[in-house]
């Protein structure tokens, strides 16, 4: 046999595996980083500040179900070569798709609001007034799209995502009680208090956000990863799930160790950053604020555009940045509409930023089970997935997630009515 064909590649299988992994890496990690957005960081820091170590137990089940769900998205994208919105349309027809898209549009509008409020809050920490910061940010987001250099900007954001390590550093600087933290990880402290349940839904909603399922699948499709490399993409998806939760874990710990014992009332990330300064040092405080700005801006660049795409593609409207307003009116209308409305609302003086952020996460949590049910319907369809349908274990984990999140949502409604 003629082995010279292999001359171009390294011979060691381990090296080859690693190179393939690097080449398919991305969708999972990027999604994970966008996931730690304004809503995420706020929810995590509030969870730590208000409930101390009590909510740490949620992270282990969240890692498991996020990893499973992300893997499902990656698998569906690679096997079918289509986005989730497309598959939903083809699986359940237009009525359910339309409802789903309206719900996604609303939830994502909440998320976009959250991102811009995150920009307002974080620039506020650096004393930049919001009526300057927000239009600048909106202009930046728009420019990115018009100039079409999204991919290179994505790399900058990813690099800046290294800032998330600052949260881990901040976590250590806060000198938490590691023993208590470890204990809380394993032993759930369950309470039926409405505030507690709302916080748990918020945590799940921000960690396993519905838009992520759409986003990760589209990125896999766009990247054009082949079936052969499915296992590497799965690793990427799982790694992403772990990274999100580790960062989140340290944010909770940092706040739990410093702010929670003092009982200082905190309402947003600015308060958290302020409160961290005397307790964990000026550095931790600034890093916290800057990481927050980066996260908000990154997500604000991605969310409005991807939302407009999903809605248009699944309903069959022309979509594409390169198309003129006349060619693709719905697409451009949605895209600009999301950004402009969000900025306008955040610019209203005395608008309750915290409630907006927080409610958007709860809206995510309520929408999540419905997206998951549709994903389960699709991924267990042999006509779409062939031999790559879900295993029983994956089905069980996903269905458990659906049941738990639905239970929490119903619980929230029940407690708020009582």
């Amino acid at each position, binding site marked *: 046999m003629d082995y010279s*064909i292999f001359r171009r590649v390294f011979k060691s299988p381990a090296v080859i595996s690693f190179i393939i992994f690097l080449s398919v890496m991305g969708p999972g990690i990027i999604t994970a980083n966008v996931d730690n957005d304004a809503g995420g960081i706020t929810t995590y820091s509030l969870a730590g500040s208000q409930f101390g170590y009590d909510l740490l137990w949620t992270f282990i089940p969240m890692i498991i179900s996020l990893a499973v769900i992300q893997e499902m998205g990656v698998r569906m994208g690679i096997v*079918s*070569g289509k986005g989730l919105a497309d598959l939903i349309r083809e699986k359940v027809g237009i009525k359910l798709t339309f409802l789903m898209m309206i719900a996604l549009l609303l939830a994502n509008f909440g998320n976009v609001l959250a991102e811009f409020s995150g920009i307002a809050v974080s620039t506020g920490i650096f004393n930049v007034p919001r009526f300057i910061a927000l239009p600048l940010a909106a202009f930046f987001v728009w420019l990115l799209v018009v100039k079409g250099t999204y991919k290179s900007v994505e790399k900058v954001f990813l690099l800046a995502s290294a800032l998330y390590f600052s949260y881990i550093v901040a976590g250590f600087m806060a000198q938490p009680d590691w023993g208590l933290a470890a204990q809380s990880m394993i032993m759930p402290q369950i309470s039926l208090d409405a505030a507690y349940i709302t916080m748990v839904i918020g945590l799940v909603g921000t960690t396993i956000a519905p838009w992520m399922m759409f986003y990760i699948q589209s990125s896999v499709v766009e990247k054009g990863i*082949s079936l052969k490399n499915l296992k590497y993409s799965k690793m990427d998806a799982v790694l992403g799930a772990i990274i999100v939760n580790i960062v989140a874990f340290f944010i909770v710990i940092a706040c739990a160790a410093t702010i929670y014992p003092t009982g200082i009332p905190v309402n947003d990330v600015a308060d958290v950053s302020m409160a961290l300064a005397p307790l964990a040092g000026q550095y931790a405080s600034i890093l916290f604020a800057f990481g927050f700005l980066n996260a908000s801006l990154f997500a604000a660049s991605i969310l409005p555009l991807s939302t407009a795409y999903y809605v248009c593609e699944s309903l069959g409207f022309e979509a594409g940045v390169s198309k003129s307003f006349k060619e693709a009116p719905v697409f451009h209308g949605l895209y600009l509409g999301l950004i402009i409305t969000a900025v306008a609302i955040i610019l209203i003086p005395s608008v309750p930023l915290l409630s907006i952020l927080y409610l958007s996460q709860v809206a995510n949590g309520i929408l999540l089970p419905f997206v998951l049910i549709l994903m389960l319907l699709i991924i267990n369809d042999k006509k779409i997935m*062939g031999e790559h349908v879900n295993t029983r274990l994956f089905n069980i984990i996903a269905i458990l997630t659906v049941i738990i999140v639905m239970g929490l949502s119903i619980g929230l409604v029940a407690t708020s009515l009582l």
Partner: protein
Amino acid sequence: MYLSDLIKKPVINPSGKKIGKLKDVIVSSETAYPIIKAIMVNTSGKTVKNIPCNYIGDIGKKIILKIPINDIEEYTILNNDIKLIHNVLDRQVVDIEDKKIRRVNDLKLSAKNGHYHVIGVDIGIHGILKRLSLTRIAKPLGINSREDLISWKDIDALNSDYSNLKLKVPKQKLKKLHPADIADIVDQLGLNESITILNSLDDEAAADTLEEVSPERQVILLEGMESQRAAELLDEMSPDDAADLLADLPDDKAEELLDLMEPEESEDLRKLLEYPENTAGGVMTTEFAAVEEGLTAQQVLDSLREMAKNVETIYYVYVLSKNGDLVGVVSIREILLSDPDINISDFMQTDVIKVDVMEDQHEVAQKIAKYNLIALPVIEKDKIRGIITVDDAIDIVLPTAWKKRVPRMFGR
């Protein structure tokens, strides 16, 4: 009438007894405007019956059959039949006229000569509103609900079922498009639809299409296809494109396909694969026209006619010495203008412009531009190994993939 009007419509016996609900509509794809052959009915007894069209009496609020269902002989579904709701509605179709992918919101049906025909697909807001039963609400709101119809003769339905991939359904309409246009469409579709399209084309058209598809996509498509078919397409592709593609495949897959290919072609490819990617050897094609010295112009012309069956670029004929060294070159123009009986050695250019197999590809492109060549021979130790054509040189300077690098989600 629209397909959406028929979905889940009750079906009743002539006596008025309810049988079940309409599940799907079966049409034959053989005519330009497909004729409805039968309807599938979900009966109350949880079975599915295919009722031939000629037993359908009146279609109003309900579908009334001409004779009781038990007396009807069921319709057997043929291979070329299309289920409108399952295969077309809500799915993507190819719009041949505009070379675009469209999402089907509804189908327009029409009665003519005692048959029901599909005349077109609705791709606009009108179709969506109708499906959502919102037309009555939309009108007062001033939403423009003109139907946005594409004639059925301008579309090709796609097949997205994982299980039916091996079915070869010829796509007559799609074939009319240029391979580069088909490739654009393939780039936008899901994996299964793309493979169906490639499988519906003959080897040559499929290979031409595959050459134009973006590199990442080529790999996925080849891996998704049956190995035998993939090898046939590689045989048909020009060797330089095939070699680039093979180099991107995992080693074991590449080896498997090379073994399945015709020995002659795979031998060429193995040689090509030895050269580093960015060198002249890496971008050249092994198909070129060459003759031995000593022939007359007429003889060269005759042998060229033979060679042209397998060789794409025949503008230059390379002249080789008895032991195979490259000694000269003549262009077709020179051959045509010369006396048929003159020996080519008398008028060939002996000072051949050439590059070494290990030459950098950008040097190659510059040389082709500088000397205004259509093709440039690539040599190794005085032996000609292949040629680099001007279109490949353009690809070096302006990679075909550049336009496709714009992320799909943000640039399409």
